[in-house]
């Protein structure tokens, strides 16, 4: 449980550091922060084995970190440096670290979902004990390729888990302007995909519990779908809040802030170990993370930019 807290706090603190960078003008790219949605990445990843593979989207920082991606390489990539996980050519929306099983992040909505299906197909054909997991948002299920993907996974009994982070908004459009109901899992189930909606997707323990059960089925060749209801606390891209835009209310946001992943887990931990012990534990965890972030920041700042020749290298 402490590990879950550490992982979620690490994501939060890294993104707060990125907020600082962004406000200081250091990030020349549209960052998409996961603040408020950390429980889904951390809860699902807690159910996976190291050899399992994941794919993600433009909002990929949480998945990258929760899967064990290298923080130094992440920070360098976001600054466009040669030492980044993609040598600076991928950027914030293409973060991935194949060495830890984060295979790709693709910012075109739903475009990475079939890639997870293909990874599962390869694992099945090779007889490997691996599953693939696709993370995506609620907007992705509006793309045809999502339905193509679940259809194929279902027909071929592929070891793939689909994880939909339903945060209610595709950029600034509410789900009910785009879909006939807020419940996505109900529409996935008829495709012979074992689908489950988690109403409180900010409860990391709940997410982990469901994910463990589904992963067990996936390993047996039953593709599964988890819809985790969550909420993006920052603007669609950028690091600020966006209540002033008027597409969603501050009141709605405040309800979700109360249900934020860290707060929910803190309540559980207080019951277990008491408030004062938790406070001192949190301080220790924060210190550890801060040291790691400082080191990674130093690494990223001191890293060289890519050489000019890299403009035309690795094209194919």
């Amino acid at each position, binding site marked *: 449980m402490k590990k879950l807290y550490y992982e979620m706090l690490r994501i939060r603190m890294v993104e707060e550091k990125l907020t600082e960078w962004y406000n200081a003008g250091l990030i020349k790219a549209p960052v998409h922060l996961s603040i408020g949605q950390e429980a889904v990445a951390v809860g699902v990843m807690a159910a996976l084995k190291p050899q399992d593979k994941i794919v993600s989207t433009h909002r990929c920082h949480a998945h990258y970190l929760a899967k064990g991606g290298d923080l130094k390489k992440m920070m360098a990539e976001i600054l466009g440096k040669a030492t980044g996980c993609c040598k600076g050519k991928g950027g914030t929306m293409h973060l991935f670290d194949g060495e830890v099983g984060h295979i790709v992040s693709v910012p075109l909505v739903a*475009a990475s979902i079939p890639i997870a299906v293909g990874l599962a197909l390869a694992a099945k054909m090779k007889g490997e004990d691996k599953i693939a997991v696709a993370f995506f948002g609620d907007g992705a299920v509006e793309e045809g390729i999502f339905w193509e993907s679940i259809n194929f996974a279902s027909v071929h009994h592929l070891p793939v888990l689909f994880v939909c982070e339903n945060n209610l908004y595709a950029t600034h459009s509410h789900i009910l302007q785009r879909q006939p109901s807020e419940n996505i899992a109900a529409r996935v189930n008829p495709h012979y995909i074992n689908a489950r909606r988690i109403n409180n997707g900010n409860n990391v323990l709940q997410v982990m519990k469901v994910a463990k059960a589904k992963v067990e089925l996936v390993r047996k060749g039953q593709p599964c779908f988890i819809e985790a209801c969550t909420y993006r606390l920052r603007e669609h891209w950028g690091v600020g809040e966006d209540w002033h835009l008027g597409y969603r209310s501050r009141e709605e946001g405040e309800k979700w802030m109360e249900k934020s992943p860290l707060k929910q887990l803190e309540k559980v931990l207080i019951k277990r170990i008491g408030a004062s012990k938790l406070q001192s534990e949190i301080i220790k965890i924060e210190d550890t993370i801060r040291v790691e972030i400082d080191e990674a920041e130093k690494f990223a700042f001191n890293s060289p930019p890519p050489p000019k020749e890299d403009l035309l290298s*690795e094209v194919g």
Partner: protein
Amino acid sequence: MKTKNMTYKDASAEALLIAMEKDEEVFLIGEGVDNVGGIFGQVLPAYKKFGPSRMIDAPISENGLTGFCIGAALGGMRPVLIHQRNDFMLLAMDQMFNQAAELRYASGGRHKVPLTILSFVARRPGEGVTHSHSLQSIFAHFPGIKVGMPASAADAKGMLLRAIFDDDPVIILEHRHNPLYEQTGQVPEGYYETPLTAKIARRGKHLTVVTVSITLLDAMKARDELVQQGIFLEIIDLRWLRPIDVNPIVQSIRKTGRLLVVDTGWKSCSISSEIVALIAERAHGYLKSAPRRITLPDAPCPASQYLEPLYHPNPEMIVQTVEEMVGKN
């Protein structure tokens, strides 16, 4: 090298079989790859040997299939995705070009996508607007993906093997129109690859004709006729549209001073535009007359059997254009 006489179609079928024998990571996937038709019979030899475990009959999901293949390639496989017509590839543009073509670059070289997309250009009365496209030029627009169009039985085999064992994505567009698809030629036995180069199909001295795909056959016929008039065409079969092998064309223009490009696609923003532009840049001073192009007219393909034959380049058009270019008329 030992060769045997076989058709373009059978040569391509043999490439699939050899690739699957050589590497167990090669598999075929596509709509109808394991059904009775067997993609015009082309996948049947491989299917007979390897069966459904390595031949996946796929749902009608072109974009999805491309993504599944990218994932499988990243998972260590070497997929061959077959679309029965290249028209259907328009449904897969996102996965082909936003993903497959760019992933190696976006990953700083950490990922490679050894994916082959094999498809066909059809040409027959009645096929109409959406079943007769020849879309090579838009596919060749994108860096990061190779595009080839074989115009002989030997290249149908060698280019497909080159594609399958390339570590980057490759599109191979075969031409299903007869006489090419059923045309026989000498094909080397066993495994071999066609290099990423253009081929000088015939030596000549008066005019350089660059052909794409089946237009090679039209140019060969035109050459035979023009020889009677003492005009000798040098014919270059482009073979690969990306990477484009421009040097032999430049060398040829230095000799002939005249360029005609014949393509199975449209003219605007096309491979024929590209070749003319490259020659303008690289061999302008050697040109004795303005380059010319014979392509599809700027219209979709009509279904009517009365109109369709007027649509495609033919040997007569080549003869007439050459005569105009060398001043015979």
